[in-house]
């Protein structure tokens, strides 16, 4: 059995059309001529940009989890909830699976995304090869569709609107932090397209031929 990478042809993952590839541009977004799927995207930057975004996102993640999310005042008494409190409410009412679903998509996946990128990119930047970096990056690409920060944010808006008719609701620090977290994760995702990551790895293994 022989397996080898081909560099002169790129096959579309969505429609299987083969494209001849004359040169790989450093900063490009290439689409399939038949089905318009994005074949690859690169940004030609160093990992520094992505590392900075990941650190920012991590700080915002901490803020979003430490402070209260929303406060509600009815008849003079105030009740606050936190990010994890939202998942907990499902658990307390006997819907453990829904609690796991909310915690997973709104809290765990975003955190794993940030930590995985830091764990993979920082050694890469320092020129070290670490164990399991390919496995981790593959896991990250599989997890990305399950990070639902932007959906949670809009869900919070819907909940606020629903309650505002009957009670006085005020967004708290965590909601603002979460909104910024959502933006930084979106920026982080667009700063680390898969193809770019593999180029960083290739450049690290063989600096002479780095594209």
């Amino acid at each position: 059995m022989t397996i080898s990478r081909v560099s002169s042809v790129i096959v579309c993952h969505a429609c299987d059309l083969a494209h001849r590839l004359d040169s790989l541009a450093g900063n490009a977004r290439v689409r399939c001529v038949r089905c318009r799927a994005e074949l690859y995207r690169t940004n030609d930057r160093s990992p520094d940009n992505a590392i900075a975004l990941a650190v920012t996102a991590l700080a915002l993640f901490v803020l979003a989890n430490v402070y209260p999310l929303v406060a509600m005042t009815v008849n003079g008494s105030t009740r606050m909830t936190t990010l994890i409190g939202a998942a907990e409410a499902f658990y307390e009412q006997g819907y453990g699976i829904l609690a796991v679903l909310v915690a997973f998509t709104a809290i765990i996946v975003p955190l794993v995304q940030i930590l995985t990128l830091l764990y993979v990119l920082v050694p890469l930047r320092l020129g070290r090869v670490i164990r399991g970096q390919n496995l981790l990056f593959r896991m990250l690409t599989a997890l990305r569709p399950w990070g639902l920060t932007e959906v949670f944010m809009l869900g919070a808006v819907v909940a606020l609107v629903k309650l505002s008719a009957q009670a006085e609701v005020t967004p708290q620090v965590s909601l603002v932090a979460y909104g910024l977290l959502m933006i930084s994760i979106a920026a982080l995702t667009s700063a680390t397209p898969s193809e770019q990551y593999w180029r960083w790895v290739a450049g690290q293994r063989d600096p002479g031929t780095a594209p």
Partner: protein
Amino acid sequence: MTTYATGRSLGLLVCTRCRATVRAIGDKRSLCPRCEAELFVRRPHSLSTTAALVITAAVLYIPANLLPVMSTHEILSDDDDTILSGVISLAHQGSWPIALLVFFASIVVPLLKLVALGDILFAIWRGRVRNPRQRSRLFRVVEFVGRWSMLDVFALSLLASLVQIQSLALVQVRPGAFAFAAVVVLTMLAAQSFDERLLWDAETDG
């Protein structure tokens, strides 16, 4: 009809994880030389996995819409709320943009996903995909908007955690919420397990 050079006709594979193009001769089960993910010509059992997930989701779509997702006491009103009645009460409240948003995310999008995936699967199953271009566009729309259906689940989690007095829950989660969340997750999994290349195989073979 134009004939296209495809990966399959040239004996080339594309890694579904890192999208490296690979020449693999011999055994079909092999690992990507770049990212070490498993390589395959087409995702194994894609059609049957997707079909099973779509059918399960379609069945659950009924209780998801008929059963109450929550019941409220005192503060909001004293009522059982289904997904649809939640939208209606938002509209009554005068929050039209939010009501429309929830209507699309919770009712239209899951239905669109089920119909679109069902149509795609049926067309492939009959072996005639007449317009793969439109169907692949439809599939991508479905894949892109699918996640937004989780909106109501998140909103409900916040309502349930906020509207309590001394740990006595005034917003009670009801079984409809479970069915609804299952529809969202199952349709997301269905879209992920579908190998889009199946839409185009008929065109190049024919």
